[in-house]
């Protein structure tokens, strides 16, 4: 039986998935779980998908290169699908979401301290989960204003890890509370 592998990226979080045909449907394996899925195409890009324990869902998919838009129930996920498991290209930092933990895991490296000046792209922290290491990189130049976890701390998916402030913003933030004292 032929099986396939690929990497799905959502909000910068990469998930490795493998899948193989199984009868009329397919089995996908993700994060150590195997899920039997069924589906049929009802028109171009529109599918009725069934996964265990759920009613069938109508899903619309568009593609643009590796980019995917997947809509179901009014919600659209913007993802990418890269077939094969090669080296990922360095991902672009996108705002502060880049400084949230992409997955539940453990802090295995602190590369900066509060007060450090960092350049865009600098590694701030490293998280490990499922034997995969993820680097949390600075989405922009700035000053580390807070580290919310210590070495060895467990972190939840989506947990905000690092605060980065640019100096101008820090000064501006102090502004409004003071003018009455001038």
């Amino acid at each position, binding site marked *: 039986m032929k099986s396939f592998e690929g990497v799905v990226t959502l909000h910068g979080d990469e998930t490795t998935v493998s899948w193989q045909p199984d009868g009329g449907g397919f089995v996908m394996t993700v994060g150590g779980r195997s899920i039997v899925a069924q589906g049929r195409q009802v028109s171009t890009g529109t599918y009725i998908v069934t996964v265990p324990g759920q009613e069938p869902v109508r899903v*619309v998919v568009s593609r643009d290169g590796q980019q995917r838009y*997947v*809509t179901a*129930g*009014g919600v*659209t*996920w913007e993802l990418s699908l890269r077939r*094969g498991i090669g080296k990922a290209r360095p991902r672009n930092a996108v705002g502060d979401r880049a400084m949230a933990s992409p997955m539940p895991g453990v802090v295995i490296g602190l590369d900066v301290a509060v007060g450090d000046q960092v350049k865009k792209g600098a590694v701030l922290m490293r998280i490990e989960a499922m034997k995969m290491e993820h680097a949390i990189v600075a989405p922009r130049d700035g000053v580390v204003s807070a580290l919310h976890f210590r070495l060895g701390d467990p972190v939840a998916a989506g947990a905000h890890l690092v605060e980065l402030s640019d100096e101008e913003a820090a000064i501006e933030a102090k502004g409004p509370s003071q003018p009455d004292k*001038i």
Partner: protein
Amino acid sequence: MKTPIRPIRKLLVANRGEIAVRVILACRELGIATVAVHSDKDQSSLFVAMADEAVCIGAAPPRESYLRVDRILDAARATGADAIHPGYGFLSENEGFGRAVEQAGVIFVGPKPDTIAQMGSKTAARMTMAAANVPTIPGYQGDDRRPETLREHARKLGYPVLVKADLGGGGKGMRIVHADADMPAAVAAASREAAKAFGDGAVYLEKYIENPRHIEVQVLGDTHGNCVHVFERECSLQRRHQKVIEESPSPSLSAELRQRICAAGVQAARAVNYQGAGTVEFIVGPQGDFYFLEMNTRLQVEHPITELVCGVDLVVAQIKVAQGQPLPWTQEEIFQRGHAIECRIYAEDPENGFLPSVGRLLRYDVPFGPGIRHDGGFQTGDEVSVVYDPMLGKLIVLGETREVATQKMIAALDRLVVHGVRTNIAFLRHLLTLDAFRSADFHTRWLDESFDGWCATQHLPDFVLAALLLDDAYHHRDQVTLAAGSPNVNKAWQGPWVSLGDWRGTSGGGE
């Protein structure tokens, strides 16, 4: 004074996007030919394709095209248009444009330029309305601006009070004062801020309405002295002063208050001898006290909810009034039936601070069905750019009750699929499911205060992943079939996996 009937044969739409489409549709019903004017960026837009004639009037930035009065008038002359509809935004509330159009011997579909001027200045408009006994926000703007005097007047108004700069804007030089003791410091701070920002430290007072609602009354006047209201719209769901969801009737008005506020709308319109379609905006306090805010002398973005709930066509009515015809209906013939809701579909990212999102539309599927209307200006393949308004379109539904309309809107949003840019569709859907919406317990600042960090797509559900892989399989099956040159019909219903072959080898994974 009666004006003779001046039939319009060809109408130029001095606007773009969904409102240009809306006006063109009305003209088609009336047998009026249409002219679109557009920037070079809008060359292949829906509204340009729909118009009978199209004239390019310049480059993408509005000041080089949609705001060029001279070029728009040239286009009118060149095409022989005898009327111009300004839509909303751009030149719609520019008295100079109205005058230039009239001087060119072309009909301006809108109020008299004098009326636009009269309502254009907020302070002057409020004075006009106060003189006409339309309630306005109490305040103090007298000559004596000494701090002690301001404090005295603040006590008379009753706290909370808003301290505002005479030349203010954008919240600069503005302070909300809740207690008498804070008054001197607030006045000093606001004045300092105003002096720094506008070169003038003068500040005045206004009663501050806490948790206000935004209710507006649709009015329509003709050249025969008739003036009616077409009831109200509730527009309290705003984000940074941009309306997000509107509905009609307002769930927060009693029948008695509705009558009074609509009557005040007509009173306001009559005070300026209003001709055409206009909107009188009120803010309504928690006790049902209401105050004139401003008058919009044009068609509103949210006009469709009024059209659905009252069964009228406001754009057709505008054009008839502009031709010198009397209003199509009397006040007694207008009533509200059912409940209408409008959701504005914006190209913005609610999960990322509502930043505007741009790109090419890979897909734009519009829902249809009983009681569902979509006013839009985009279609699949169009580019959404930063140059123009981020609104892609408007989804409007009509149901027997507010609850029915809400359910209908949720179901309609589920079928509105926009791919290629990020949109607020999931956010709108989320709002409609909240208790605060269901019980209509909200105010104009609710959205600004409550939705920081909202995210709908944090996790990757199994069905999303399954759809992703299924789509990939179908895509490659099609490619393999095409490559083999022998499309096999039977394989289609067997699912994508049967005919896959070694697609990894064929396409190498590099897209």
